[in-house]
């Protein structure tokens, strides 16, 4: 049985105009990204903003066509966006957005909006109330307007709408980053519960490694359009293989136990990544303490490393990299 969704070698570039004077620059948002999402499982995609993770989500969902590469959903190729076939296929795959207020029509009551996918796909619209209840909203929320709900309730409504057609695949693009911290956990729990109940495959996109770990069965780390590491959440979080993953992990605030030594925080040096001006070789090398000549010249492939089979795209993946080396150029000068 094939995977729920398979993406092979996806690339997507945008032309970005530099003002009125300059010519346009090609920005490679996503570069040779391959993903596999299994039924009932969640793949977490993590990276800083601008690294191409949202574009990857849109490509996986077929909202955009990749310049090269292919997405297969349940074994069949993704139809062209906005074709009739594409529209029909939407019943099987859905999206949860970062900004629930923006994703809802402020002029329609919640019930009408949750009923909309059912109307579009010719399904039974009496399912609205049970749907609302299944995401923890009350029956009377159906008559409310989006601005009358709280942020968490709105995200529940968006989720109810996404689940209305009983999709097999859900892309959650930063679903909790616009919510209060106290509500984030509730929505995360809701997502895991829904998955357990309905067996939905998910692509969970976030810049927050902890959130990703909590819901994901596998994690992929993205940097400037490429996946640099993939693996089990615990492995990636506790023994990150790629220098960039290490930096991400070290940025997570740790509760400090009495007497424990505080792990050194890795502060990334160098210019923040600019997709329009991609460094040669490994895109991370200008910020990497372990970069060597080969890193500046050759793009590392994502492959299992020799020592323990972890999937990572780094020339120095098999070297023993000391933690102290992260006191990088600036600090050494000082």
């Amino acid at each position, binding site marked *: 049985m094939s995977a729920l969704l398979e993406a092979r070698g996806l690339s997507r570039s945008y032309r970005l105009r*530099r*003002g*009125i*004077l*300059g010519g346009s620059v090609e920005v490679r948002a996503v570069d040779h990204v391959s993903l596999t999402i299994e039924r009932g499982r969640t793949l977490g995609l993590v990276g800083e903003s601008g690294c191409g993770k949202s574009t990857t989500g849109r490509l996986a969902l077929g909202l955009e066509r990749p310049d090269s590469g292919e997405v297969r959903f349940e074994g069949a190729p993704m139809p062209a966006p906005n074709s009739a076939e594409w529209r029909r296929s939407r019943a099987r795959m859905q999206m949860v957005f970062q900004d629930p207020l923006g994703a809802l029509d402020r002029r329609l009551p919640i019930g009408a909006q949750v009923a909309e996918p059912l109307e579009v796909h010719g399904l039974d619209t009496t399912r609205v109330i049970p749907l609302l209840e299944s995401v923890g909203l009350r029956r009377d929320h159906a008559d409310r307007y989006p601005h009358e709900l709280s942020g968490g309730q709105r995200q529940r409504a968006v989720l109810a709408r996404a689940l209305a057609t009983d999709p097999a695949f859900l892309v959650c693009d930063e679903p909790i980053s616009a919510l209060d911290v106290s509500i984030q956990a509730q929505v995360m729990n809701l997502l895991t519960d829904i998955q357990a109940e309905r067996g939905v495959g998910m692509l969970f996109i976030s810049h927050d490694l902890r959130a990703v770990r909590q819901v994901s069965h596998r994690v992929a780390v993205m940097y400037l359009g490429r996946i640099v590491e993939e693996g089990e959440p615990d492995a990636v979080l506790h023994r990150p293989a790629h220098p960039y993953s290490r930096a991400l992990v070290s940025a997570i605030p740790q509760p400090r136990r009495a007497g424990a030594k505080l792990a050194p925080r890795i502060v990334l040096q160098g210019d923040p990544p600019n997709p329009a001006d991609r460094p040669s070789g490994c895109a991370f090398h200008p910020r990497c303490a372990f970069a060597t000549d080969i890193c500046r010249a050759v793009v590392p492939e994502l492959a299992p490393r020799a020592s323990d089979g972890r999937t990572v795209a780094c020339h120095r993946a098999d070297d023993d990299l000391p933690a102290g080396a992260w006191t990088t150029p600036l600090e050494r000068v000082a």
Partner: protein
Amino acid sequence: MLRFTITRLLRAAITIVMVVTFAFVVLRLSGDPAQIIMGADAPPEAVDAFRTAWGLDEPLWVQYVSYFGAIFSGDLGRSMRDGREAIVLVLERIPATLALTVPALFIKLALGIPAGILAALYRNSALDRAVMMFAVAGFTIPSFVLGLLLVLLFAVQLGWLPSGGQESWRHAILPVITLGIGGAAALARFTRSAMLEVLGQPYIRTASAKGVAWRRVVANHALPNAAIPTVTIIGFMFGSLIAGAVVVESVFSWPGVGRLLVTAVANRDLAVVQCILLLVAMTMITANLVVDLLYGVLDPRLRGGARKAEA
């Protein structure tokens, strides 16, 4: 700047092509162009000669190309009323129109801009309210009503000024005032809102909070920035120097381009109408182009350069 200039020139060129195409299509839709351009009384051999000369027996796209050729060589047909060349007829009228619109433009600028600036600087004062009332009145009272009211007052009741005609400079006073007041009102309203917008910007508040004298804040920061949007409407006023007096010229029987247009429309003298249409469009497009380029000079942001820190 070069790329900016080229884009604007290209857009202007496209618009000119569209205007000429519009004239071509409309002329084609409304009947036999040879007969229309030459006039109904033209001898048949002249019409035939015209047809061959303009290639009206050729396929449509050839005609379209040669229509462009004719227009850019200044061959705009003849008036069906007196058989004279349309372009000559129109050019003859231009000085009379300019005699109204140029002084009126000065009134608009001299009255409208200071009024708008003062209203903005003394917001919600009696002066501001007076300017706003003037501006609203200027918009809601159509020029033909204003003109006729002025005639009723100054010509009919008081007998100070002539009500129409073009015999002396005194005849120009009422039409110039009519044109000037309406435009001044629009300009005052526009300048006021441009100025208010600029005065609300953080850099103005920063400058005055830093202790820069208010006069200097206004002179060095507010005025130059408020000038940028105001240039657009002034450019439009320049563009309408030829066409902006259609109604007023009719009210005061002033023999300018506008009145020529109205009579030509009433008589369906299409060569003349087409000639004025093209001339006005060219003037407007040129004025818009100059405004766009001036914008580039005044507002460096539009050239795509880095945004310069203000204040």
